[in-house]
């Protein structure tokens, strides 16, 4: 890697390909000099200007709009220029070509605009993560969540929690370091009460059925079942009906095939797994093992079983007992007869996978499972496993502190708060002792 902030970086900010308008973004010390490279004399900061860009022979490249931002009032904190040109591959290539051969300019590395913004204090890490998610957002819900995070949905409550932990820890440290001073008598009760409130807030935030992460990463739905039950048929049926397939990755390294699609506005990663059966084949055994892992970490398992075989319900029940995840049972091949009677029970379907309306039926079931997530009126606070781990660790420490006796060793209570503070600090920046001392000296009259 050879990053240098001395360089002015540029990149196409809109998706490649033909479009009505494309935006090229340029950031760095020479960004506002760019119009001159195209034979345009224009002072661009804080204006939107329509100009004609020309190549080095004076031939007009395109009719564009320039948007200029002078540092530090820009997205990256540096001078920034946006060229809104026509979305023609040739025009874009020509403009980028001119920039690339100009000294001091280079194409941006992945994420470099964001990194510069972060370095220049334009956003905190959680906001930067929100921005990255916004760029990658595939669905409306994802976009809504990402923009909420960018505008501080995460950093606001987390900032408040951090402030609370710092304050509580400062009070505890005051009880230790200034034990011979006259501290308020109710300090301990205050710490206990506020800790309980903070724990409740963290618990609420954590108790969100991982909705934020599901939206961000997609709901993992795994199709499982014995061989030849119709798993792949189901997969194709669901995938084929949905125009919103974003990508499908062939399982080259593992025997799991994954398709991404959108159901009820929620991205779903639909995975087809190797069928269960006793096997002596090592490779196939490995595939089955992987399928097991997939199943146990899934948000939802669709168990497909041949409904025309007598005793299928018992087999299915037996299999489901092994699952560590919620499941729906789909009795397939209903066109071939049998399929048991107790279909009205929750979680059982009969399905003729040769009929396209079967897909509708299953989707409706999936929808009813997903709908509660979609209707959540509050945007979730936690959208990443990294955040969840930190909050959970902080909560565990705070809860542990509540089990310790104040009559005994309060250094151990403080130790729990210190660990809680450092866990939250991993998201929000660490809590320095000077910050604690500020709290202490501004609240208590300390010193002789």
């Amino acid at each position, binding site marked *: *890697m*050879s*990053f*240098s*902030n*001395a360089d002015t970086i540029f990149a196409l900010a809109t998706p490649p390909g033909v479009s009505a308008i494309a935006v090229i973004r340029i950031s760095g010390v020479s960004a506002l000099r760019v119009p001159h490279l195209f034979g345009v004399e224009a002072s661009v900061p804080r204006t939107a200007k329509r100009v004609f860009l020309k190549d080095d022979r004076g031939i007009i490249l395109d009719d564009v709009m320039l948007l200029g931002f002078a540092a530090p009032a820009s997205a990256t*904190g540096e001078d920034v220029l946006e060229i809104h040109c026509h979305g023609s591959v040739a025009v874009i290539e020509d403009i980028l070509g001119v920039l690339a051969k100009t000294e001091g300019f280079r194409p941006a590395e992945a994420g470099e605009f964001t*990194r*510069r913004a*972060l*370095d*220049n*204090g334009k956003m905190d*890490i959680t906001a930067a993560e929100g921005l990255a998610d916004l760029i990658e957002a595939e669905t409306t819900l994802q976009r809504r969540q990402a923009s909420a995070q960018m505008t501080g949905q995460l950093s606001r409550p987390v900032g408040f929690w951090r402030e609370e932990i710092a304050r509580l820890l400062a009070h505890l*440290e005051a*009880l*230790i*370091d*200034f*034990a*011979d001073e*006259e501290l308020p008598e109710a300090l301990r009760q205050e710490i206990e009460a506020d800790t309980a409130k903070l724990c409740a807030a963290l618990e609420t935030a954590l108790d969100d059925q991982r909705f934020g992460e599901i939206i961000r990463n997609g709901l993992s739905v795994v199709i499982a079942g014995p061989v030849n039950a119709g798993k792949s048929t189901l997969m194709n049926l669901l995938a084929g009906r949905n125009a919103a397939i974003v990508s499908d990755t062939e399982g080259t390294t593992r025997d799991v095939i994954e398709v991404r699609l959108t159901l009820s506005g929620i991205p779903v990663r639909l995975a087809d797994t190797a069928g269960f059966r006793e096997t002596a084949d090592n490779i196939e055994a490995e595939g089955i093992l992987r399928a097991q892992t997939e199943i146990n970490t899934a948000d939802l398992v669709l168990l497909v079983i041949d409904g025309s075989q007598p005793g299928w319900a018992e087999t299915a029940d037996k299999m489901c007992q092994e699952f560590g995840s919620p499941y729906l049972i789909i009795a397939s091949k209903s066109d071939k007869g049998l399929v048991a009677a107790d279909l009205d029970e929750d979680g059982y379907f009969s399905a003729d996978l040769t009929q396209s309306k079967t897909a509708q039926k299953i989707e409706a079931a999936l929808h009813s499972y997903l709908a509660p997530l979609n209707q959540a009126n509050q945007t979730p606070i936690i959208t990443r496993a990294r955040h969840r781990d930190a909050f959970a660790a902080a909560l565990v420490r705070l809860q542990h502190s509540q089990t310790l*006796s104040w*009559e*005994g*060793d*309060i*250094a*151990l209570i403080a*130790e729990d708060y*210190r660990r809680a503070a450092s866990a939250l600090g*991993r998201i929000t*920046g*660490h809590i*320095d*002792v*000077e910050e*604690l*001392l500020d709290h202490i*000296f501004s609240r208590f*009259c*300390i*010193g*002789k």
Partner: protein
Amino acid sequence: MSQKFDVIVIGGGHAGTEAAAAAARMGAATALVTIAVDKIGEMSCNPAIGGLGKGQLVREIDALDGLMGQAIDKAGIQFRMLNKSRGPAVQGPRAQADRKLYRNAVQELLASQDNLQIIEGAVGDLSTENGQITGIITEDGRHIYAPSVVLTTGTFLGGLIHLGTERTPAGRFGERPSLQLAKRLRGLGLPVGRLKTGTPARLNGRTIDWDRLVMQPADDILVPFSSLTQRIEVPQISCGITRTNEKTHQIISDSIHLSAVYSGQIEGQGPRYCPSIEDKIHRFADKSSHQIFLEPEGLDDSTVYPNGISTSLPRDVQSALIATIEGLEKTEILQFGYAIEYDFIDPRALAPTLELKALKGLFLAGQINGTTGYEEAAAQGLIAGINASLHCNPSAKAADGFILDRADAYIGVMVDDLVTKGAPEPYRMFTSRAEYRLHLRADNADQRLTDKGLEIGCIGPVRSRHWTDKKTALSAARRLLSSQPKGPNVVAAAGLPTPRDGSMRTPADLLALEGVGLTQLFEIWPELATIPEPLHNQLETDCRYAGYLERQQADIDAMRRDDAVKIPAHLNISAIGGLSSESKDLLARYQPQTIGQASRIPGMTPAAVVALLRHLRKISSAGDGQPRPISASFSL
């Protein structure tokens, strides 16, 4: 006339005496140069040693065979263990001192020290050659040579006393300051700043109405500071407690504009944790009363130090306000309180050995580095003295000097804080400054440090023998504690808490449980009775904290990895990619020497540290001999 030494120490306060004694213990021919020989070991302010965080420092000084612990054990007239009920990690021994006994004890210890000569004189100049110190010149023209000089000027460097609107140049009350040296240091281009501190009036104890006051006695069991002290033999006294009242506050509010601090006369920053009484009343107006401890300054000295009312108000106001306080209505004032401003050198100009980066061989310790407190000064003196002696001995083993880190000692925490963050206000130790507080305890200072001291040679023969014996006893005890596991039935039969997991437990496992003490285990394991009683507390604490300490070890390892990644001295900061201008400013201003230090700079973002690491990795893979960074304890 001229003389030659290995190490010259300037100043006979708490930093100077430790520095001189340490250098001499290390075998360096040492001179202690001080303005007044009879004032060596003087306590300028509050006559007490130890306290929270500070008591730990004294134990650490003692573990490295320093003077302070031994001296206070011979001079302490009220021993108290602070935070007795708050857990072993945060307990701090403290003792009120008899000022004269303390001074005598320090002077006796120095007199019995080989390799040490004491010279009376005021130092006026430093001699240098090619960016290396070569010696000192006294104001009366004597030239004394040495390749290492330790400067411990306390509040004497450009000292200025404020009393009301009066201003008097002085180092302590009635003692002249070092003005010529102050000018010389400013001339060296060192970053010099001003700090201030204050002291209360001194009272005549015979005129205090003690009968009306609440008295605070010494502890029943007197715990010495030094591990060499068998028992405390000094008689113990009680301190009185009284309070300010609304009348006191009224007088102060009416005259606050006359205080040197509030009239804008003082430019130096004072400590927030040691406010003057006018500060307290101004900032906490809703508090109607403040506590005052009346601390006798000696057994046969009637002077009393009223702890809690330091002030720079004019004399008549001081008299009036003291007369409003219960028990002090008719009290005679022996010396008025004052504020003192003095020069300090921004300690970011120092390496962690306390040597100036810009002038080889010149070491600074104590208040000159922006700290406050005897213990903080003494601890720095010790480190500076050891390193000054290593500096003039090129064959010494510790080529990079003797550096303790944040997981070794409070001393390490303090030195790292100073050289990394500077001293925006006078620096005092608190236990909250120590990340690894459960490990850095007053009770285990010798286990943490004495072997390190032996390695570099700063431990004398007496302590060396004493420590070897203790170490043997400790390891024998540890062996006993971790062997002979017993089942739950045996444990339950002895009436001890028995977790219902059916597993076998060693004595150490049981000691980890709340409320279990070593003596309770004798019934099951009679051989434990052979463990010497003085070791009990410490072993119990080790077992109780074992789980926490294990977890902390991972953090310590990460910190040490980051501290091991050196930042080259002449790093081109502008060449570091992905760094904001704020972060570049911080790096330029603080000049961290390691990634660990960089990460501890206030305001340094994790992202900036990662950018710095990435840059170091880049230049190290370019093959310039830089160690390859292993990790940073950050993740984005």
